[in-house]
Structure formats: C-alpha cells, structure tokens
C-alpha cells in the first residue's frame, strides 16, 4: 500500500522546507528593497527622510517578523511561545498604526493629495498604506489568537532545540546580510533579459552567483546554530566541498574579470556594491568570500570532528 503524503506541515519535511524557502525569498526581496530605499538618506545627508523612513520601515518589517518566527520555533515552552506571539502582535499592531499614519501624512501633506507618486516604489506611498493595513490586521490576529496550546501550535516541536544567546545574536547579525544579498541576486536575475548585466555580464555573473552563495553560507551557519550531532556526516562533507569549490570558481572568475577590466565595478556594479564601488580593488569580493567561508570552515571542522568521533565510537 502506497504511503500517504501528509499535507500537515508538522509531518511533512519537504513542505516545511518549501514553505521556509518561499518565505526566505519574499523576505530577502523585501529586505533588499528596504535597504535600497534607505540609501538616499545617506547620499542626501538626511534630506527628504520623511519620504524614505516609512517605506524603509514597511519593507524591513518582514525581516523582523521572520526573525521572531525563528525565535518562536526555537522556544520550547508554550508560555514562552505565547509571550513571543504577544510581543510580536503588539509590535506589528503598533507598527501598522504608525505606518498608516505616516502613509496618510505622506499622501495628504508631503505629496499634496496624491496617493501614488511612484518614486520610491511604483505605487508609493499607497503601498505603505496597504502593507501597514495588513500588518495591523496581522498584529491584531496574533493578539487575539496568542492563546495557543500544544494542539493548535502549527509549528510545534519540530525544532524546539534551544539555542544559546550567543548563537542567536550571531544569527541576528548574519541573517540580514545574507538576505540582503540574496535579494540582490534575485533582483538581478529577474531583470537579466533587460540587459541588467550588460555590458560586463561576464564579470557581473560570478558576482551574482557569489551573492547567492551567501545564503548557502547561512544554511551552514544555521546548521552550526542547531549543532545537530545526528547529521549525515559524509553528505555534509560533500556539500561543504561542493560549496567551497563553487566559491573558489566564482571568486577566481570575478577576480580575473576585475583585473582584466579594472572599470568593471564602476561601470556595471555601482549599486550592487554601494559602499565599495568606488574602490576598484575587489574588497567587495573579499567581504562576500569571507562571509561564505567562515561558517563553511567552522562547519567543516565540526563535521570532520564528528566523523572522527563516529570512527572512535565504532
């Protein structure tokens, strides 16, 4: 008799991975857009901040929610889960209210009655209003339904392994950067046929693959956070080595491209490397490589250690 495939997220690992992947993609894009919205504050020395901050906060909020969901997943007691839902609900509700007020000010005062000005995003500031209404509804829902119990907890004890504060703080640091660059990668691929990578596409392409690799680094980091002693060591080793190989290939490829054309970053990647574009030396590449390499090396060392322990225990 064929095994029935459960559509219950508690029971179906593939469904869980799929769901997390979709959420990760959405939050990455949102984080990326938020950071891009924010940059004019820096370049304009704070000018027009009132038109930037509402958009930035609106689009960065999913990152906060995502982080709180991770915290929720890694909380083992129901009381603590309820506390997290309460805090999340309160924050999102207040945020939603603030966002709606800001959107109203933008529409009514700053843009003198225009609901769509379309400078920050194509439907700005209407998107600020609509998204914050969603946040408000979500926040209220969380406040109303925070009284969960084991039966209703949809994510329940799948990953209720407690993680240390240090690891959680590290994750909080690592996550936004990986998500931002993953969002950058997605953005570039979405517009690839619009000539997004021209005219230096041969040099831009490896950079975008490196941006994607930063998420792979995050996956290894998450495994480090979980410290799962039951992982399949040999499979882990193969995936580590493959990732390292890709890192080397794309890293060297990008390096060669920069040395062949020292104008590559200023010509084609000014907004990808916002802070580092005026420096044609590959500091941006170095940052990305280290970002991927550090968790890779750490996890590699742990896997080797686990393999040795396995051998000793036999």
């Amino acid at each position, binding site marked *: 008799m064929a095994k029935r495939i459960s559509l219950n997220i508690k029971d179906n690992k593939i469904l869980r991975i799929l769901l997390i992947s979709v959420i990760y993609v959405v939050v990455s894009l949102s984080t990326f857009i938020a950071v*891009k*919205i924010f*940059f*004019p*504050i820096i*370049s*304009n*020395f704070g*000018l*027009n*901040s009132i*038109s*930037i901050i509402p958009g930035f906060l609106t689009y960065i909020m999913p990152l906060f929610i995502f982080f709180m969901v991770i915290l929720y997943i890694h909380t083992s007691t129901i009381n603590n889960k309820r506390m997290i839902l309460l805090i999340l609900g309160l924050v999102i509700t207040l945020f939603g209210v603030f966002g709606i007020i800001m959107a109203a000010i933008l529409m009514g005062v*700053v*843009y*003198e009655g*225009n609901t769509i*000005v*379309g*400078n*920050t995003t*194509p439907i700005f500031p209407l998107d600020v209003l609509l998204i914050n209404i969603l946040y408000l509804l979500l926040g209220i829902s969380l406040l109303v339904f925070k009284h969960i119990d084991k039966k209703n907890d949809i994510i329940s004890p799948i990953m209720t392994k407690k993680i240390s504060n240090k690891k959680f703080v590290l994750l909080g640091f690592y996550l936004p950067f990986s998500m931002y660059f993953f969002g950058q990668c997605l*953005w570039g691929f979405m*517009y690839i046929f*619009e*000539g*997004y*990578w*021209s*005219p230096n*596409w*041969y*040099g831009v*392409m490896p950079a975008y693959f490196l941006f994607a690799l930063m998420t792979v680094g995050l996956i290894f980091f998450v495994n480090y956070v979980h410290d799962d002693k039951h992982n399949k060591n040999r499979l882990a080793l193969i995936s580590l080595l493959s990732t390292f190989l890709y890192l080397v*290939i794309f890293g060297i*490829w990008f390096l060669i491209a920069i040395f062949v054309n*020292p*104008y590559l970053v*200023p*010509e*084609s990647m*000014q*907004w990808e490397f*916002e802070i580092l*574009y*005026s*420096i*044609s*030396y590959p500091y941006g590449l170095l940052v990305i490589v280290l970002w991927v390499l550090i968790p890779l090396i750490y996890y590699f060392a742990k896997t080797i250690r686990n393999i040795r322990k396995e051998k000793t225990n036999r």
Partner: protein
Amino acid sequence: MKKLFRYSSIALLSALLCSCSQGAIKYEDEAYIKELNWRENFLVCHLGDLHVSSSTNLEKQFNYYKKAVYSFNNEKPDVIILNGDNFMNSNKECVRKTLEFFNSLEIPFAFGYGNHDLQSMHSPDYIDNLLRNLQYALYADTPNDDVYGRSNVAINIKDNGVSKYQIYLIDSNSYLRSEYDCIHQDQIDWYERMVLATNGYDEAPSNITKDTFTKSMIFTHIPTKEFKEAYDNYLARYEGKEKPIINGDEYVDMREGVSCSPYDTNLMDYINKYKSTVMIGANHDHVNNTDFWYKSEGSDWDLRLIYGQKAGFSCYFDEDNIGASFYQLYDSPKKSKHGNDLYFNDIKMYVPYEGEAKIIWQNELA
C-alpha cells in the same frame, strides 16, 4: 555527479569564451554629431548635479527645474546641458520621469554622465535606452563604440549649413582604483576627430590660428586638473590678501576644493593646438561657482574654466548658491569691459525654490 560536473564545466567555459568575443565598433563621425540651428545670442542652459534619487519629490523638483531653465529673462534656451550626476540612488521610475520631463520642455537637451549616474536600480544601459527614444534628447546612438564613456556627443550649431559653434560633451567617467577617473586618451582622440569633422577637415591644417576653427565648449562632469591649477594660481595670487570673488572678467566663488582626477591627460594640448575650445564647463563640486581665465604654460590661448551652478536641493548644497548657468554664444568675439575677447557671455543665475531668480554675475561688455 560526474555528468553534472562535466556539463556545468562546459557551460562555464562557454560563457567565458563568449565574453572574449566582444569587440568595439568604430562609428563614422556623423554618428556622434547632432545639429542645432544657430541664432543670434544662442542661449545654452547648463544644469548640473541634479542628484535625483528615489526619495526626491519629483513634482516639486520638476517645477524647480522649469523655473531654473527659464530663469534668465524668462527666455527659452536653445539647448539644455545636463552635466552629470543627474541621478544617484534612483530607480527606473524616477529616471524615466525625469528624462520625460526634460523632453516635455521641448528644448533640445544633452545628457552627460557623472560619477553617480549609474548608481541606481536599473541596468547600465537603461538611461541610454530611454534617451534613444526621446525626441529632444541630443543622444549619440553609438553602442559598443571604440570611444570610452557613454556621453560623448558633439553638437554642431549651424546657420544655413555654416558651423557657428560646437558643444562637446565628454564623459568624465567615474572611478579607477578609489580615485576619480579621467578623460581617456581615446576620448581625447575622439574630441580631435570631432573638431576636425565639424569644421570640415580630414586632418589638422598646418598653420592653425585662433580663427581656423569655429569656437566650441566642452562639458564634462568632473573638473579637469586645470581647474585645480587655476585655483592654486588664484590662491597664490591673493596669498595673505582678501580673496575677491569678482576680479575683472573672472568670478571665483570656491567653497570647497577641486575634486579632480589625479591622472594626467593631454586634453589641454589638443585645446591649445586647435584653439577651438573656449570653455570647459564642469560640476561635481556642488558649492563651487567659478569662471576662471586660464592659460597653460607656454600657450597663448585663453580657456575659461567654469563650475556651473548646482541645480536644486539634493545631496549637499549651499542654499544661496543653487540655480543654473547660462551662456550667450557669440559667433565673433566681443570685447569685455576689461579688454578681454569674449566668445560667450557667462550668466550665473541664483534660483531659489521660493522667490524670484536673480543674476548673481555676468560678463560686462565694453
């Protein structure tokens, strides 16, 4: 696993090899030349450092730009030069709307790239693709050409087929290894080609005088090294003394240093050789506003080095120093009150957001 590795290696190798096959195209001179009709006191409007970003209140800015463009006696200029850093941290929507706005003024306009224009959420070709389709854009459609930079264009101002003046936009490029880049040699060679072509020469004549070639202006975003030299000379001239802003035909309101490229170019040699270019117009240093009279060592050719006014509130600026610069072109020189030959009248307009625009300074004719 082996198959996957094999196929992905082939794919990567193919991609690398394809990239090696890209080559540059040499276009005919005509591809770079745009023509405008001459009139007496042909008026050039020079705007720079617009720094339109995704946070810019476009409606407010467009009203300002229109005010700036018409600020000199409410006169419609014959051409608008957008001299670089028109965009920074912008997006497609803002770029499109801004260029469409300038197109809607129904005044020919030339777009010059600065060091920040590509620092926005669109592909590097996006601005070019838009300019290609705008009726009033003076755009040289020369993709993948053999001249470095994006905004190299020659505007030939003619009266019944006779050249009266030229305007050259030369891309000052952006960065090279943490320094500002400079105008490349192939661009300088291009400039020479254009000077010859617009004046009907195949090669440089043997005896060049100041009347051999029609007069021209160069617009480039980042100031050349000559700006720094001129400023150093000015400081040396008035060392220990009060530094005047107005001195004869010279206007020097320098509120910051000259951020030029450290790399040497020989553009000045060509300018001195052909005695066509009478002015280099730059921006980039937002709060500087000058009309230096400059002569390089060993040369008898006067070159005016002009920092144009920054247009509008964005990035950094001084509220009392924003507006537009205008140039009334003369097809034959006029004497200034101070005895110099003026090939154009430099008019500096202060344009506030609220209130009347006013002339800060202009040349005085005899």
